[in-house]
């Protein structure tokens, strides 16, 4: 842009309209000065437009409070050596009953790439089908790519004996 505008002076087109009293050297300075002002103006405009847009593109924090606890169903419905997925807030979690009858709950989000894990009855492990990651029933990595163990939740039983529901909460 600025080259073209300096170049215009030599075209001689507007010499009548824009008097050049001080001679060519200072006219060049003046042109340079005006060009700079103009460029600064354009750049400022671009920045004033780009800034709000760049801020807008970043999604706001969802504002969703971190879920503290959730009900994972009736304790009696869960058979030994099985696991069931349930919703813990907006993310999946899994509640399992060991062969000994102990109930445990974990986040079902694999620590590798966020797939959802499932209970493997034959090995009594938590297994992620995406990249074959396995966790034991303590949530610890047994094999495969997961870098960390699964987040473990606190399990409480609530209600009349025999009809308790499983209440899962963050530790």
């Amino acid at each position, binding site marked *: 842009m600025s080259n073209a505008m300096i170049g*215009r002076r030599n075209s001689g*087109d507007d010499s009548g309209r824009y008097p050049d009293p001080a001679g060519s050297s200072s006219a060049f300075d003046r042109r340079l000065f005006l060009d700079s002002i103009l460029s600064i103006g354009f750049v400022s*405009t671009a920045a004033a437009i780009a800034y*709000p847009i760049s*801020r*807008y*593109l970043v*999604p706001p924090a969802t504002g969703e409070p971190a879920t503290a606890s959730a009900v994972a169903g009736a304790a009696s419905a869960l058979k030994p050596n099985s696991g069931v997925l349930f919703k813990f807030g907006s993310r999946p979690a899994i509640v399992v009953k060991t062969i000994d009858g102990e109930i445990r709950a974990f986040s079902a989000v694999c620590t590798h790439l966020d797939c959802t894990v499932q209970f493997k009855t034959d090995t009594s492990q938590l297994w992620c089908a995406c990249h074959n990651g396995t966790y034991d029933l303590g949530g610890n990595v047994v094999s495969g790519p997961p870098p960390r163990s699964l987040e473990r939740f606190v399990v409480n039983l609530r209600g009349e004996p025999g009809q308790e529901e499983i209440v899962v909460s963050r530790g």
Partner: protein
Amino acid sequence: MMKRTLDWVDERVDLSGLREFIAHKRVPIHTQEIWYYLGGMTLFLFGVQVVTGILLLLYYRPSATEAYESVQFIVSQVEFGWLIRNMHSWSANLLVGLAFAHFISVFLLKSYRKPRELTWLSGILLLFLMLGFGFSGYLLPWNELSFFATKVGTGIAGSVPLIGKFLLRLLRGGDDVTGATLSRFYAVHVAMLPALATVLVVVHLLLVQRQGMSVPLKLERRVKEGQPLKEMKFFPNYVLRDVLAWYVVLAVLAALAAFYPWELGHKADPFAPVPAGIRPEWYFLAMFHTLKLLPSHILGIEGEHVGVIAFGLLGAFLVMVPFLDRRASRGERSPIFTAIAILGLAYLIVFTIIGRYAN
């Protein structure tokens, strides 16, 4: 740096033709030259609509259960979301206003005359498209006013003789205005109309560039008689003036968006009564009020039908103007068309004002 980049491109794709064209393009200087800027200003706002519209798509959800909430989320939670949405709404209104001013000025200057009939044609179709954009976009926030305005608007389409019922179902995606209507209007607003408008804008601009600017009839005659036409260089002289006009538009738009937030209103409730004082966007007011004034029957035909037919004929007339105004095409004065333009403008202004304040 800039020069080296250009040279690099030039070496691969010969730009000499384009460079020659820009270097030699001239814009006439005369007393009516101010009207030349309106088209560019409208184009600028079209660009604003494209950019802000795409940005709104990032958070907007087109469903009856989520649309209102998502717009609320944009204006209250997303950083600068209020700015983007206000800009989009205000820019839409300014765009219709400027496009209309552009249209009237071209009409009065008779710039549609031979050889620019196609430019007029593409322009008038663009104007209709802009009204379509306004009508379809109005519903998207799914608030009370837009919900009922869409009921009335699509109802008017329903009173087109013979095909009315079909048209109404086509527009609404069913018998009533529902979430299905919202999906349709969304598709029309963000995909169909933009595709059509882009093609038409390109055609319109290519024609303007190819044929150069039209000069008023009187001046054209004097030039034919040998008087030299005063001109300025398109680049950079005219371009810089154009940019200045865009800055004015941007300043007005930014001020409106910042100080006069566009209301979101209440969420649409199909089972709530129509809120009092419901009326369409200002650019449909004249039409809205005309239909209100028509008696229920005219010569045994339903008043609504007569009104809709009349507006259809008016639209057809506007499209045909360059072909009807033979005098202007021969380079003669055509006072009849000037009178038509002025009468039409007066009707629009008066009916818009009455429509705004009448109950």
